[in-house]
């Protein structure tokens, strides 16, 4: 599904190299987790994959189902099936949540040569998805993320994911700022989307989220590289011992 090969990335404006040769292969239906200390490049990886400005790829490649991702505009990546759940979802005053969702869904459908969804069908779809995430009608009516609590913002991200039905989902610290109940709600939302074909890359600091969203593979990232890959037990090891041992091991 997602293949990242020797990816090197620096900041566009400064000479700061952030990713120093990332290799990652995620197969269809697989759930991978990336853990790592602050500043290791986890969020940068998610931004570069989704096409945010401000980064320069100096070497390497990334592809989604064989299509070269880094050549595409952000909207083309989305239409190709990539979705990033933001660590800090953006507030957009003046744009209603429903308008936003419908515009996004229909733009993707159009880009893929599919027919746009009618207002009625769209409403039905959103209501159904919103219900399971406990998102009420008021939240759908309000401007995108404006006045939402931290938990509401994250639930709204998962709602978008559920409506847009991407092939490859990247969750960037979706657990940050969530209380226990909200984490359960968000995880249930994510798990409901696991269908054996859709793939996930879960970026997190804590093992806790991985109790809810069970990964097939866990990677440890440090200083711009993936330094260790293992099964779910690796996350537990980090939780118990911290990153120090792992970092020492590599050096």
């Amino acid at each position: 599904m997602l293949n990242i090969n020797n990816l090197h990335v620096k900041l566009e404006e400064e000479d700061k190299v952030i990713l120093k040769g990332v290799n990652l292969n995620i197969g269809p239906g697989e759930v991978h987790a990336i853990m790592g200390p602050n500043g290791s490049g986890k969020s940068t990886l998610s931004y570069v994959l989704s096409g945010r400005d401000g980064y320069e790829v100096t070497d390497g490649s990334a592809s989604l189902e064989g299509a070269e991702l880094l050549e595409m505009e952000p909207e083309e990546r989305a239409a190709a099936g990539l979705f990033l759940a933001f660590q800090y979802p953006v507030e957009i005053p003046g744009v209603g949540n429903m308008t936003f969702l419908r515009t996004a869904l229909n733009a993707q459908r159009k880009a893929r040569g599919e027919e746009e969804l009618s207002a009625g069908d769209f409403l039905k779809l959103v209501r159904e998805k919103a219900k399971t995430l406990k998102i009420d009608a008021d939240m759908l009516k309000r401007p995108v993320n404006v006045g939402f609590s931290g938990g509401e913002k994250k639930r709204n991200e998962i709602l978008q994911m559920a409506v847009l039905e991407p092939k490859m989902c990247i969750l960037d610290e979706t657990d940050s700022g969530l209380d226990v109940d909200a984490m359960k709600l968000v995880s249930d939302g994510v798990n409901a989307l696991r269908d054996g074909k859709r793939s996930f890359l879960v970026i997190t600091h804590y093992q806790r989220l991985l109790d809810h969203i069970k990964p097939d593979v866990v990677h440890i990232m440090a200083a711009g590289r993936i330094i260790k890959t293992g099964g779910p037990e690796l996350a537990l090891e980090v939780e118990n011992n911290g990153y120090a041992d792992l970092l020492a091991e590599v050096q």
Partner: protein
Amino acid sequence: MALPQAKQDALAARIAGLDLPQGGWLGAARSEALARLTAMGLPTKRDEYWRYTDPTLLTAPGACAAVFDDSDEPPVFDAIDRLKLVFTDGVFDAAASDNPALAGIEIERLALAGSADIHWAQGLYGVLETRGQNPVPRPLAALNSAFATDGILIRVTGKVAKPVSLIYRHKSDASDAILHHCIKLEAGAELTLLENGPAAARFLKVLEVEVGDGARFHHIRAQGRDHERLAATHIFARLGAEALFKSFTLTANGRMTRNDCVLELVGDDAKAHVAGAAMGDRSFHHDDTVFVTHAAERCESRQVFKKVLKNGAVGVFQGKILVKPGAQKTDGYQISQSLLLDDDSQFLAKPELEIYADDVKCSHGSTSGAIDETALYYLRSRGVPLKQAQSLLVLAFLAEAIAEIEDEAIADDIRGRLEGWLHRHES
């Protein structure tokens, strides 16, 4: 004090070809207006309230020819059930208009109503304009009161069943129209006034509105998309106790637009909202100059102006709130914002507060900025193409001004219009 010779000459040249009909109540009002104008002279760029907008094209003896936008898009408000009154090149066009008989309202044509000795409009025509000349002189409004060729006089006694819609058409590319309307809402009356159309190559307009106690006046206008037209418009309104005044203006294109709005809240608990959404490209110059006077207690005023500018377009906002002694519990709000789509465009804002009462709430804010890059990225990451995402953010920026329109159908019409215009630029 006599005007300097140069100013006298400029004024003489401007009014040389204009007709000053005598007789009747209107003849007297016209003569008084001419006396006001002669004392003031025409505005120049050296006047404080014309510092950001060069009035030369508005004060020149003739209008430059303007090519009008003849796109086939249906006119604004087409889907709204309304009473249509049409002016072509500044003259009332009875054949194109609806029969002006409607319950709760009297409609007369200025050009015909002026010869009587006594008329209700005597108490309004040029009267609110005169009050609005102090402390800021508005010579173009006085010129209008003196030389208006036509206009409409409306007296509202009840709740009018449908909006009255003034439609301005043009036949000549060089039309230079001067229209003057007076509207009097008696206590408890209610009227929605719509205005749209290109009007003329150069359009000078005054609208005087007296909103009686408890009366409600809604005004929504769409200034034509014609890129080369010039317009100077004035609204003078006076509000009685518990009266409501709401005015919204949509402007797209136009080489020069100056919209003056002078509001006076003289009865307690009155509310006045004035809003504008403008989108301009290239040589577009758009100026909103607003003066709100609070002269009674517990009144509320809101000014909400938003401008989207690109390719060197210029936006101006001069907004003032004056709170007179004794106007306690005044609630005044003023916001002017511009969205600059490139580095060439300019927004000039001059917010002013002058307060002589000690228990009031007044706030003002003004911002200029580019499109929020983070929001743009967020939208694109969800699959919305760049130009469509930009349009969505432009609409979002204008939303606060459009929200000032109370009637949902009319607001939707305006919003749909904007979406259509933006959409056309997406491809």
